[in-house]
């Protein structure tokens, strides 16, 4: 097997060190390592992180291959520094059976750009009425352990309780899309001053917070593990903080766009900013950053939601909700969390690799950069500054809110078990 020496990389942002990859594993970490027989990558002080893990990705295959496929989505993931992604279940057909999750898992293996861990639907057809065969999906080759009806909320309290209880049998976790459906009928953006002015249907913060409050209490009652998807409001942060202080086994994620953008962008009526949950207020953004810094929010997840051009090049109300995110996530985190002094790179590794891998049970990912560990690594040029150019995205879709915006940082190399998937910024 081939050897690679990464010379002078700031491992997790620390002092420059050499990292020697031998085959699929990290052979040594230290200073002045011998380059003999190895391909040398001069890191020149770039930051080396464990391969990033995204607990919330939409790969759209099967069913919407015009938006994204497992291959294009995993190429986008590799471009963004990810070595594992969890693929959401809202495909066509829905990933609610062992057959569909195995198909997604197999397509991931074939792509070779990043490990794909399918997420199984909680209920049949995401309809919220009848539990899907959670055990069968877990027992399948895909070994599903995360279940979510993402895109829809499991709003029936009894179904949610049963799902939480049931997955305990095999150490699963239910990832909730917290959105009270009745309170968000016709919702187009955050409910508040701006929605009132623009005449767009409001998505009130309480529609998210009331479901989170209910679900942490359910998780406590039945002693189960709960994960909250794309948390977006200051009030939600307070509820998670309270739940954790009470010892409830809950984790939460925040999306990069909720760390950077506010509802003010909606004044453009540009559907690039249309996303669910919606962009919130400046106050919410501040609360989310602080919560990610102090660990109340456990991880960053992209909610990478590719849509074809025609689904966004239209009037706001007709547009699809969602943004692509895999290729810009780390840059947004650098701008909002690192350059503001809220997180150092070791903590970024925690929020974007170690902890998401632990929550999702992604074996071999989210491991320390140390000898004997799988060589899943990401090298980041943190000094880079450049405008986001969607034309260069590997994702099949281009629906980014950052077009033309300057963001810092660029992933130059990604290694999946010792094999480069991204080399000098180019996919292999």
């Amino acid at each position: 097997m081939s050897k690679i020496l990464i010379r002078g990389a700031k491992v997790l942002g620390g002092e420059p060190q050499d990292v020697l990859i031998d085959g699929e594993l990290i052979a040594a970490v230290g200073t002045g390592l011998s380059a003999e027989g190895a391909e040398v990558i001069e890191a020149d002080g770039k930051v080396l992180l464990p391969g990033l893990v995204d607990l919330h990705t939409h790969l759209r295959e099967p069913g919407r291959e015009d938006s994204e496929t497992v291959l294009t989505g995993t190429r986008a993931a590799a471009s963004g520094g990810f070595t594992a992604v969890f693929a959401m279940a809202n495909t066509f057909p829905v990933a609610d059976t062992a057959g569909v999750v195995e198909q997604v898992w197999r397509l991931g293996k074939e792509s070779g750009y990043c490990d794909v861990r399918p997420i199984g639907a909680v209920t049949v057809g995401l309809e919220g009425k009848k539990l899907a065969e959670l055990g069968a999906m877990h027992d399948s080759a895909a070994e599903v352990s995360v279940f979510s009806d993402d895109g829809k909320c499991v709003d029936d309290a009894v179904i949610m309780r049963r799902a939480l209880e049931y997955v305990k049998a095999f150490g699963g976790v239910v990832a909730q899309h917290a959105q009270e459906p009745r309170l968000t009928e016709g919702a187009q953006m955050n409910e508040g001053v701006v929605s009132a002015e623009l005449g767009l249907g409001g998505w009130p913060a309480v529609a998210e917070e009331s479901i989170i409050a209910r679900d942490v209490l359910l998780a406590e009652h039945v002693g189960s593990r709960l994960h909250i998807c794309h948390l977006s409001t200051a009030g939600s942060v307070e509820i998670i903080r309270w739940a954790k202080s009470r010892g409830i086994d809950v984790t939460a994620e925040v999306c990069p766009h909720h760390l950077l953008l506010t509802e003010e962008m909606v004044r453009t009526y540009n559907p690039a900013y249309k996303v669910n949950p919606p962009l919130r207020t400046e106050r919410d953004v501040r609360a989310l950053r602080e919560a990610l810094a102090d660990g109340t929010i456990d991880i960053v997840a992209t909610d990478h939601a590719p849509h074809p051009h025609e689904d966004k090049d239209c009037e706001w109300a007709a547009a699809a909700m969602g943004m692509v995110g895999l290729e810009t996530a780390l840059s947004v985190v650098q701008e909002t969390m690192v350059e503001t002094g809220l997180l150092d790179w070791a903590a970024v590794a925690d929020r974007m690799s170690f902890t998401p891998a632990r929550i999702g049970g992604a074996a071999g990912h989210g491991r320390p950069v140390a000898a004997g560990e799988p060589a899943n690594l990401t090298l980041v040029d943190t000094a880079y500054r450049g405008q986001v150019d969607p034309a260069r995205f590997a994702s099949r879709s281009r629906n980014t809110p950052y077009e033309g915006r300057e963001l810092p940082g660029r992933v130059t190399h990604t290694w999946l078990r010792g094999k480069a998937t991204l080399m000098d910024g180019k996919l292999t």
Partner: protein
Amino acid sequence: MQRHLISAADLTRDDAVLILDTAEEMARVADRPIKKLPTLRGRTVCNLFFEDSTRTRISFEAAEKRLSADVINFAAKGSSVSKGESLKDTVQTLEAMGVDAVVIRHSASGAPYRLANSGWIDAPVINAGDGTHQHPTQALLDAFTMRRRLIGADAGLGRDLDGKRVTLVGDVLHSRVARSNVDLLHTLGAEVTLVAPPTLLPVGVETWPCEVSYDLDSTLPKSDAVMMLRVQRERMNAAFFPTEREYSRRYGLDGDRMARLPEHAIVMHPGPMVRGMEITAEVADSDRCTVVEQVANGVSIRMAVLYLLLGGNEPAGAQPATSHLRTEEK
């Protein structure tokens, strides 16, 4: 003047007064035996209605024809929010046919803004009502009606509505008329009070440049104009208020309530009225109610807006228009 008319909030005081003054000139045309000006001869205006509204469309059509424009009416049938391609493709088709202006009505808030700012077309866009967002020509015709009634047609020329007290009553939450009126009346110096049950006021209304009250009776004696908003019957099923009767008792305008208004005060309604619920027949048919005048004034206002945005080649009315009427819009 801006190139487009998307929102009443985009108008400066001077823009708005210019439109009202121009509308007075246009109104004189309606008194002539031949109600037509050659101003927009050779220009083509498209009325693009994605949402049914016979009254507004006919008003625009009358205004366009009185200015001698060629008129194309396009009614997009089918779903209320049609797929995006249809809006983009439709307007690009129209522009390829040489349309000089687009009057658009759409159920989606922001659709006219998107049309004017997306680069899909080059022609001026006039918003004829979008979702629950804006209906700027309605606000202008309301302001025009107030100025004529409360100040006088000739005495009002060049004047705004400084210090006039206007009360808007009813379903503010779903009303583009309310939003447009609050913006424009504030710009024109009027004091606006919104009166509605809390369920029919948007979250965030406290930041608007107006007062808010839940109590109609205490507001009436301080009002120079009361504008009743239409309440759609389907709101009742969505629990915005308990029953039609309870709404009517608390927020309907009947003879007793009208008697609380100052002598000179007027009663307005954007139409169509739901008689017996938001307004009684007695009030609707009284000479203080301006509903019919509002319709007539709507044509004058729309003539003025089309004239100013399209920069006609002829004088506006009997008198040559002042020179600045025709500049700055190319």
